């Protein structure tokens, strides 16, 4: 399979992540969408690494992306738990203390 097939899958996964973020009113869906988008970026890195003239740089980038995604998920879920304690809800539209 050529590079184009992988890039197409990556683009579709990115679009799905964007849809999950935009269409669902729930913080956890936003996190899932972010994970999908990061995975799409990783797939692009590895595909271009395979088909380009790089040595291993794309895979290294993907590894650092995975590391940062793990850190991001841990911190984001801690924040979600705190938001739930504070507002009794995990809808992003209800965390509006500054509006009042």
């Amino acid at each position: 399979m050529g590079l184009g097939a992988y890039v197409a899958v990556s683009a579709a996964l990115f679009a799905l992540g964007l849809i999950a973020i935009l269409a669902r009113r729930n913080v956890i869906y936003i996190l899932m969408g972010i994970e999908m988008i990061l995975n799409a970026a990783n797939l692009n890195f590895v595909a271009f690494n395979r088909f380009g003239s790089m040595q291993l740089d794309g895979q290294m980038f993907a590894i650092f992306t995975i590391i940062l995604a793990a850190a991001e998920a841990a911190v984001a879920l801690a924040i979600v738990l705190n938001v739930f304690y504070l507002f009794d809800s995990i809808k992003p539209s209800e965390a509006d203390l500054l509006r009042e």
Partner: protein
Amino acid sequence: MKKEAALQRIFYGALGVLALAGLGVGLAVAGAQGLAFALFAAMTLGGGVMCVWERSIVRSAFALMATFTGIAGLFLLLEADFLAMAQILIYVGGILALLLFAVMLTPPDLGERRLGRILATTVLVGGATVFLGLEVARTANWFVLGAPLDGRAQDEFGSAERIGVGFLALDQYVVAFELAAVVLTVALVAAVYIARRKKSDLEPEVDTQQEPA
């Protein structure tokens, strides 16, 4: 609820037909390798579509497991074996468990999904993606990017050994590696600190104001 069940049946029927069509196209275009690619691509995209579609968060999280596993399979097809294993360990084993943990701690909200909103977003985002994709396919120089460089030395241990050397060799990624370690430590300690409940939250409300005698 009858309408809901019918909707589910239509959705999964369409998804299955699409996946089978993808497998057939892959097999017809590139043989066994195309079949493997189509299988993993179908897992990836099907999981993503289910995640957007499903009403309950738990089902969405488990659909995301298919997505992550499919991505790991695509990594394997791209000869990134170390990354594939890391993907399964970290995403399927770690991040997904964290997501499910957060799901269990929050109440279900089954009325949150709006089909109209999903449809409108799909049309918008899908249209933008298709437009950009066609534009890129038209302008990119695929002759430079197209073929894998077969002259490159592939060592017999796969990519794991070269990645390990890249992490530790002084002229390559050792600074980024140490920085990543620091970032992970700080982020995880911060996560524990943020998520912990303050002691004052756990104690029952005590009336601290002394009643005048």
